């Protein structure tokens, strides 16, 4: 069997600033991020022959390609499920390069998700596609936003584990603490307190406003090449040790309410099994992680599903300070999507690259291997990244 483990590497990344109003088109953001990633890697745009992104991205591959001066695009792939798909395009790139389909693949995500349209609003259900009729079925009772969908899952998690909103406050505060020293973050210079978290208004009880990610404009791109090529390039190669997708039995997009466990957990656990199997690594081998935080509380079942603590024990793991630098598993040192920005998790992949290169603002000393996860409560994806 052909393995993708350690055959490819992230050779460069690029990002625009993150804002509430970028002042330019989404395509322009995608092109800026792409050119930034190519410059970072030291690769000429004419060499790009593959592109992978999210189904939800509004920027077509060929338009980015036209703008950067591309020559011969051979591979393009899109992955559904919004933020659940974050590491799917990375997996596509790794597979395409490992099999010789493409040599230089750009993975991108760019959006004016605050200034031109807004996520988190009641979902529009027409036309009656297979996913839309399910959103409409739940919307019939008033369940229409991702916050309410995750809130319903997390309420059950709280009931079964004893976790409370005060436990979730611990992560919300930590994310802003990291963000407060990150000049690219919305919460730069703006740490919060547990009391402020508790006093923030309810969005979908049990989720407070300060449990929710940022509506954001911005773009992030990665350049992925073979491991061999990456070693000859400008930056320290960040190897893709594993990349996987997970959608086990009973998974529904933000609506998996009909299986035994409705926590945002099963799809993460299914992805985790593949990652550890592909790479031969275990949770104990990981020095830090980016755990997807569309909603901060989802980090708790995420930590459990990826094997960093036992089921139901994340509240103690977090309370004991293990997510801090110096703890067992520092996470989301850029401030997460609660504190930095929400670019469908791609800004978290960029943070993992910085950590592994040793160039992050909140640097974890001696990071060798990291987990990066994607949105939970729906079909998901994740990757293990590392440096030699």
């Amino acid at each position: 069997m052909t393995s993708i483990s350690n055959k490819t590497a992230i050779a460069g990344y690029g990002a625009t600033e993150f804002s509430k109003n970028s002042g330019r088109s989404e395509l322009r953001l995608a092109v800026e991020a792409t050119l930034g990633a190519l410059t970072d890697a030291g690769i000429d745009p004419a060499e790009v022959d593959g592109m992978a992104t999210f189904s939800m991205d509004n920027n077509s591959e060929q338009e980015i390609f036209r703008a950067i001066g591309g020559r011969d695009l051979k591979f393009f792939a899109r992955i559904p499920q919004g933020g659940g798909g974050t590491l799917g395009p990375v997996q596509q790139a790794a597979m395409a390069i490992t099999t010789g389909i493409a040599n230089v693949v750009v993975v991108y995500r760019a959006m004016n998700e605050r200034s031109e349209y807004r996520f988190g609003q009641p979902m529009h259900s027409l036309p009656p596609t297979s996913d839309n009729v399910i959103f409409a079925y739940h919307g019939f009772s008033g369940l229409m936003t991702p916050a309410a969908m995750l809130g319903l899952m997390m309420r059950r998690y709280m009931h079964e584990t004893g976790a409370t909103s005060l436990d979730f406050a611990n992560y919300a505060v930590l994310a802003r603490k990291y963000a407060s020293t990150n000049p690219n973050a919305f919460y730069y210079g703006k740490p919060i307190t547990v009391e402020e978290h508790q006093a923030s208004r309810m969005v979908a009880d049990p989720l407070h406003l300060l449990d929710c990610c940022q509506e954001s404009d911005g773009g992030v791109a990665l350049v992925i090449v073979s491991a061999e090529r990456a070693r000859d390039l400008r930056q320290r190669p960040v190897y893709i040790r594993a990349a996987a997708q997970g959608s086990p039995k009973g998974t529904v997009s933000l609506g998996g309410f009909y299986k035994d466990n409705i926590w945002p957990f099963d799809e993460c656990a299914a992805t985790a099994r593949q990652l550890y199997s592909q790479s031969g690594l275990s949770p104990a081998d990981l020095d830090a992680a980016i755990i997807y935080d569309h909603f901060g509380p989802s980090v708790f079942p995420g930590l459990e599903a990826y094997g960093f603590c036992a089921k139901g024990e994340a509240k103690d793991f977090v309370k004991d300070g293990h997510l801090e630098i110096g703890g067992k598993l520092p996470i989301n040192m850029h401030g997460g999507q609660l504190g930095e920005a929400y670019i469908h998790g791609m800004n978290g992949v960029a943070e993992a690259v910085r950590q592994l290169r040793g160039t992050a603002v909140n640097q974890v000393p001696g990071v060798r291997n990291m987990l990066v996860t994607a949105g939970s409560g729906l079909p998901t994806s994740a990757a293990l990244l590392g440096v030699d």
Partner: protein
Amino acid sequence: MTETTARGHNAPCSNRDFDFFYAGFEGEELLVQRCTQCGTLRSLPSPGCGNCSSLDWEPTALGGEGEIFSYVTHYHPPLPGFSAPHPMALVTMDEGVRLLGAMDGTDPDTLEIGRRVKIEFVRRDAVAAYRFRYL
């Protein structure tokens, strides 16, 4: 989208896998699918049976009682058709399947996992619908 008369209901977004569910409320019935091959009940509609893969099913009415498995109260942003705060419950029906339902008309602060509820058929403008109330 097919005509309302052909679908038998006024729910806004449905297809031929889901029409029976909404049409049931017109006659004050809570319908789920029952696989005619293996007998498995399924609430979230699907053309196929997740247990035996059969495409053959029939609608079957539930008694309408169950207990709260989880719940959430929507506060923000404003919802079309509902006022805030808007409580909702995921209910394990006595027949074993789960069903999400609105609980408007009930104080959100009283919601509890394990509490018994019963379906109430309501109309929301032109649409025949349902919600849960405490037993």
